[in-house]
C-alpha cells in the first residue's frame, strides 16, 4: 500500500533527523562523542567543564536554530510554490528577506554613512534582530497593501520580486556610502549564521516559528485545492483572498524572523519542497508539510555540520554552504525530464 510506504518513509527520515542532530552537536573544533553528550545531558556528568559549556551554550542552541530555520524556510517555500503554482517560488520572492536585509543595513550602514559612529560600535544581537524584523515587517505591510488591491496571484509574485530588487538597490546605495568596518559587519551578516544565539533568543525564535506554522495547519485543505489553480479552488469553496493573507502572515513570520535572526539562508526554501515531493511521491499537503519540515531540518543540520570544517576552528558561512548544496539540487531537478509535469 502507498500509505504504509509513506509512513515508513516518515519513520526513516525521523531517524535520519535524530542522527543528523547528534552528528551536528558532536562535530566542531572539539569533537565530543555522542555518548558523552548523552551522559552529560541526562546524568549531568561531563568529561570536562568546557565541554558542558560548548554543548549547552553553543552547539545545542545552534542545532535547535538549524532545525527551526530548516522547518520555517521549507514550509514558507512549499506554501509559496503551491499558492503561486510556480516551482521556483521561494520564501524570499515576496521581498521578505530583502526587507530584513534593509532593516539590518540601515542599522549597520546608515550609521556609518551619516557619520554616526555610536551605532557601529556596540551593536547588540537584539538590535540586529529588531532591525531585521522591522524591515521584513515593513516590506510585508507594503506588499500586503498592494495585495489588497489585486486579484491575481501572478501579479503579487511580480510585485514581490520588484519590491525585493528595489530594496536591494537601497542596500547597495547604503553600502556604497558606508565605511569599511560597517560594510564588513553587514557582509558577514548577509552570509548567514546559525550560531551565536543565546537561549532567550532561541526561545523567541521558536515561539515565532510555532505561531507561523499555525496558519498552515488551519488551511492545509485549501492548499490541496490550490493545486488545481485558483479557479478550481474557488469552485471548491476555497477563498483565495483569505488563503493569500494566511500565506503572507505565515511566510512573513517564518522567513522574516529566521532571516532577522540568522541572516539570509538561500535555497532551502526552494529546494526542500521539491525533495519532499520526489521522496514521498505525493502532492498531498498533509504529507508534504511534515515531510518538508523534516527534510529542511536534516538539510540545514548537515549543511551546518559540513560548514564547521571538522578539526579546525574555522567555519564557512552557512549561506555559502546551503547555496553550494542547494544549487546542484535545483539544477538537477530542473534538468529532470518530467520536472515541470510532476510539480
Amino acid at each position, binding site marked *: 500500500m*502507498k500509505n504504509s510506504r509513506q509512513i515508513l518513509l516518515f519513520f526513516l527520515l525521523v531517524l535520519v533527523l535524530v542522527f543528523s542532530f547528534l552528528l551536528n552537536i558532536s562535530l566542531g573544533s572539539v569533537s565530543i562523542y555522542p555518548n558523552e553528550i548523552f551522559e552529560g545531558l541526562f546524568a549531568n556528568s561531563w568529561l570536562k567543564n568546557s565541554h558542558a559549556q560548548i554543548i549547552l551554550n553553543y552547539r545545542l542552541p545552534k542545532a535547535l536554530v538549524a532545525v527551526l530555520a530548516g522547518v520555517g524556510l521549507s514550509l514558507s517555500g512549499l506554501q509559496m510554490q503551491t499558492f503561486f*503554482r510556480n516551482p521556483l517560488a521561494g520564501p524570499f520572492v515576496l521581498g521578505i528577506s530583502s526587507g530584513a536585509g534593509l532593516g539590518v543595513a540601515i542599522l549597520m550602514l546608515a550609521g556609518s554613512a551619516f557619520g554616526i559612529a555610536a551605532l557601529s560600535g556596540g551593536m547588540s544581537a537584539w538590535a540586529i534582530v529588531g532591525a531585521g524584523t522591522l524591515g521584513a515587517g515593513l516590506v510585508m505591510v507594503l506588499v500586503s497593501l498592494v495585495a489588497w488591491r489585486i486579484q491575481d496571484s501572478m501579479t503579487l509574485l511580480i510585485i514581490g520580486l520588484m519590491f525585493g530588487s528595489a530594496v536591494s538597490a537601497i542596500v547597495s546605495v547604503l553600502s556604497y556610502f558606508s565605511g569599511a568596518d560597517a560594510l564588513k559587519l553587514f557582509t558577514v551578516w548577509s552570509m548567514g549564521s546559525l550560531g551565536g544565539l543565546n537561549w532567550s533568543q532561541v526561545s523567541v525564535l521558536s515561539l515565532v516559528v510555532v505561531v507561523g506554522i499555525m496558519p498552515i495547519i*488551519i488551511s*492545509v*485543505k485549501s492548499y*490541496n*485545492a490550490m*493545486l*488545481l*489553480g485558483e*479557479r*478550481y479552488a*474557488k*469552485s*471548491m*469553496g*476555497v*477563498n483565495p483572498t483569505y488563503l493569500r493573507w494566511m500565506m503572507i502572515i505565515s511566510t512573513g513570520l517564518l522567513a522574516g524572523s529566521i532571516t532577522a535572526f540568522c541572516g539570509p539562508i538561500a535555497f532551502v526554501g526552494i529546494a526542500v519542497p521539491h525533495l519532499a*515531493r520526489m521522496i514521498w*511521491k*505525493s*502532492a*498531498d499537503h*498533509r504529507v508534504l508539510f511534515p515531510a518538508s519540515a523534516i527534510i529542511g531540518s536534516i538539510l540545514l543540520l548537515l549543511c551546518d555540520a559540513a560548514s564547521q570544517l571538522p578539526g579546525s576552528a574555522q567555519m564557512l558561512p552557512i549561506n555559502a554552504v546551503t547555496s553550494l548544496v542547494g544549487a546542484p539540487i535545483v539544477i538537477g531537478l530542473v534538468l529532470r525530464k*518530467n520536472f515541470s*509535469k*510532476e*510539480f
Partner: protein
Amino acid sequence: MKKSVLIAKNLTLGYFSGKSKKPVLKNLSFQLFENELTCLLGPNGVGKSTLVKSILGQLPTWEGELSLNGKLIDTFSNLELSKQLSVVLSEPVFPGNMTVGQLVALGRIPHTGWTGRLDNHDRGLIENALYLTKMESLKDERLVEISDGQRQKAMIARALAQDGKVMVLDEPTAHLDLVNRYQIMHLLRDIASKQGKSILVVTHDLEIALETADRLLLLNESLPLISGLPEDLVLTGQLDRLLPGEEFQFNIEKGKIEQKNIDSEVILKGNQTIAFWVKKALQKANIRRLNAPIFITEGDFTLIYLEKEFHRIGDLIDFLGES
C-alpha cells in the same frame, strides 16, 4: 413538467473598466433543467465565459436575476455554492504527482472537515464517480502518466464527486481529439440523465452538441439568446444565426456546417457519393466552370473528362489547373 434548477431572468452582466460600465450580456433569460445536458454555443467573444463566471458566483449580476434552486446566486457564500455546483475548465491544470483517486477525492473538499479526512459516505461517492466515468482501473495512476483525455475524464469525476446538482463545463474538450470529444460528451449525457444532474457545457462543437445535447443555448452578438431542442433549432433554421455572414450555412440533410455552394456549373455523372467529394475538391481548388461533364465509373474509380482518364481526384485537379 421538467424541474428547472438554474433560472436566469432578464440577466445583464458586464465588467467595469475604470469608471465606465461595459455590459457584455444584456437581457438574458434561460433555464437549466434537471436530468438535462445543455450546450451553450456561440462565437468567441460573445460572452460565454462571462456567463459561466456569473453562474460560478464570481461575477455579480447587474440587472435581472440568476437563481439556483430558488436562491439568488449572489447570496450564496463560496462554500455553499460549491456544495451545489461543480466545474470543469478547459485549461489542463494538474499536479503530476497526484493520483487519479486523489484528484477525485479533492472533489469532497467542500464537504469535509478542516483536515479533509474522508468518511465512508465520501469514499462511496468517490468510487461511484470513478465508476461512472469508467476510470476505476486508473485510480492509482499518477496524472503525469495518463493521456489528456483521461485527465479530463478524471476532472469530470472530480466534479461528480463534489456532488452538486449542477455541473458547469467550460470547453472541457477543447484540447482533445475527435474520439475523446464524442466519448466525453456522451459520458456527460449519461451522467445527466441517470444521476439527476443538470449539466451545462460551453462548446464550439456544433455537430457533437447537436447529437448529444437535450437543449441548446445559442448566444450571438446583438441577437437575443435562443434556447430550444437542437432538432427544433435545426428545422426552424435558427442554427444559421450562429454563422454570421453569407459564406457558410448549416446543411440540414448532413447535419453540419459547410461552405455555401457557390453556383458551380460543373456537371458530374455517376455515383452520388463520389460526385459529392469530387465537387468539394473542385470547389476548394476554385474550379467553378468546366467545358464538359465529368463521368464517374465505379469499381476501378475512374474520372473521365474530355476523354482523359484520371484515377485520383488530385490528378484531375492538376490537369485542370494546367489547362
